[in-house]
């Protein structure tokens, strides 16, 4: 039954979080706590931290994650096709080829327009 499989997944998540939190709890119980301001400054290789950490960068990070989202969506259409294309004969293969070629155009466009450049 499908539900039992996913019961295991849920229990694994719960037990995993519990045991990881348990290890943190052990440290919270065991570890010494000597707290003074200098210790709590952020680590800047010794330099006193200045300015905001949220320095904003240019747009290339966004472009990478954008192209990733579009191609991640493409990959999910490949999964169901991959299982059944064997029984479906040629036209299923040709229809997927069209699908992949269209998205390959997208990749070529992103490539030429410099969306994949890191400069």
């Amino acid at each position, binding site marked *: 039954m499908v539900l039992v499989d996913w019961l295991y997944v849920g229990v694994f998540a719960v037990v995993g979080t519990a045991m990881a939190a348990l290890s943190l709890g052990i440290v919270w119980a065991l570890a010494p706590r000597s707290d003074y301001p200098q210790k709590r400054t952020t680590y800047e290789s010794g330099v006193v931290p200045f300015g905001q950490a949220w320095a904003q960068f240019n747009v290339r990070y966004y472009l990478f994650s954008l192209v990733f989202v579009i191609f*991640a969506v493409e990959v*999910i259409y490949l999964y169901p096709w991959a299982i059944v294309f064997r029984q479906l004969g040629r036209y299923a293969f040709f229809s997927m080829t069209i699908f992949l070629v269209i998205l390959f155009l997208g990749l070529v466009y992103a490539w030429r327009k410099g969306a994949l450049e890191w400069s």
Partner: protein
Amino acid sequence: MQLGLVHFLILSAMLFSLGLYAVLTRRNAVAILMGIELMLNAANINLVAFNKYVAPDALNGQIFALVVITLAACEAGVGLALVMSAYRNLETVHVDEINVMKW
């Protein structure tokens, strides 16, 4: 009490109204996009619930949910591109400050 269709519909109605609340009241454009994602998810729950309880023979509801997920991904991509270019030109992402048509 057996788990019926109505439970899922009520949950999706709650999710939808929470998403609508976010869209109506948030100032940050990205938060509005998150609200839209929540509303799309609520609609997806309904699609899949109807597919199980009302028309279980063909998987049309689930296929439609997959297409909705694809469109939500495209919408998030383009919407966030607009947010990025608005931020670059107007230095703000707060929608009530973006009120000039030509930047």
